């Protein structure tokens, strides 16, 4: 089968990870708007003692790359502290996926954005700001 996407992208697209939502999340990040195409919401369950992301879920409205990058980003963040997770870059996500077509690089942007916003939201809820971890 001939596809523009890498095998890693197609695998995650077919079997996405961490899809769904978390009730009363410790942090929630919403990005994108449907006018430009895509919407991504990331939900975090964080252990407040250790700052470790114990669970993470995502909802995605978008293309194949958007679905694969939201899966990959959430997989990468799970088990990390919020400080570590905040540093995940779109390049790391894309590299881990065996690369993305140039036009689709921005989809990985969206996933990393949503994660960062969810972390900021968590920090705010626990009375901190992003400067403290950055």
């Amino acid at each position, binding site marked *: *089968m001939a*596809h523009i996407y890498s095998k890693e992208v197609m695998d995650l697209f077919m079997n996405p990870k961490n899809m769904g939502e978390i009730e009363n999340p410790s942090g929630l990040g919403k*990005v994108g708007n449907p006018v*430009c195409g895509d*919407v991504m919401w990331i939900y975090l369950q964080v252990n407040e003692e250790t700052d470790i992301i114990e669970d993470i879920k995502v909802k*995605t409205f*978008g*293309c194949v790359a958007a679905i694969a990058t939201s899966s990959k980003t959430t997989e990468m963040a799970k088990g990390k502290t919020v400080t570590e997770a905040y540093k995940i870059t779109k390049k790391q996500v894309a590299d881990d996926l065996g690369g993305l077509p140039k*036009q689709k*690089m921005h989809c990985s942007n969206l996933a990393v954005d949503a994660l960062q916003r969810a972390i900021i939201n968590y920090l705010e809820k626990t009375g901190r700001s992003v400067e403290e971890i950055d």
Partner: protein
Amino acid sequence: MVYLDNNASTRVDQAVIDAMMPYFTDIVSPPSSDYGHSFGVEAKTALDSAREIIASKINVNPSDIIFTSGQAESNNFAIKGIAYANRDKEENLLVASSVSHSTVLDSLKTLEKQGFSVILLKVDSEGFVDRDHLREIVSSTNKRPLLVSVPHGNVEIGTLENIEEIASICHEFNVPIHVEATYSFCKVPLDASATDMTTITSHLIHGPKGVGALYIRKGLKLQRLIDGGLQENKKRGGTENLPGIVGFAKAAELYTPEINKITQKLRDYLWNVFEQKIPDFQVTGPFDRDKRLPNHFSVVISYVEGESILLHLDILDFMIATGSACSSKQLKASHVLSAIGLPTEVSHGSVRVGVSKFNTQEELDQFVNHLASIVARLREMSPMNAEFMREWEEMKAQGVVPKDNHHHEFEDLEE
């Protein structure tokens, strides 16, 4: 493989291939004058008879048919040919429907850069040209258009325009009309003699790719685009693509009204099954089935994205098309879906199907079943739903929609 993208291109009929073969292997000469060697004469006879077949399909004289390399060349020739032939005139306005094919619109863009003016006609929510807007423009006394170009059948939303009506409005004011009939040729009767130019193509009727024609009304002045020979009534230089032209004529001959009955029946069957099995979708283009291309069905499915649908189906060996922004090179929604007033978030769910005589009802049943489960799956992971859309509409009304439009900032992503 179940191929359901027959308004993009079609499988070539075996009988068409058989008809073409001798012109690859035996009669290899270019069509010559009647006084050349016998291969040249045979080639010329084949060319003439192909021209007659094609001309009769659209009710015009064979001598007014120019063979081209297909839709893009015919449309470029029609539009630029008229513009360049009138370069020195004061009037320099060119008009097209806003749902015209990109080969028409891009030709106009080029001309606009060269100093011509361009107006795109408004269309209604089903893609029909706004008659009042057309009348207003062609009747203007100080800026009469050099040409009006409209599609007969629309590839994306199936709209079948009433060409007779549009032509009579244009002709009332002596404005020539070009009709883009690529998608309707042989599928819907067209009397091209009522038009000034008409584009037709081979590869959508089970003929080969890379061949088409342009009907040009006798006496209409066009500047030719390809110099270098006396071929095609001195309007297009270059050796004719004889195997292609023979195949084109054979395909046109084989595409009888019977074929349309078959595809229309399949399309209507698909439409009915769709209504039973897919929740929350909206037909794009005319709802009246008789006002659509007979083999065409197009929809937008709510809360899901077209590229995702397309690739899921592809993995299951079903091939369809989408006008979603995510699947376009420029990440822009289809200009047709935008012109009929669909917001991008809605046109994201675009799916279109073109059936052919090679498809079966069983295939369509399987297709809709697969689609139903794909849509359910994608909706499960989508944050969008009816409630989201209501909120979204309110935000739009209040002008507080977030502005992180990442589709416009993809240039900065190389780092």
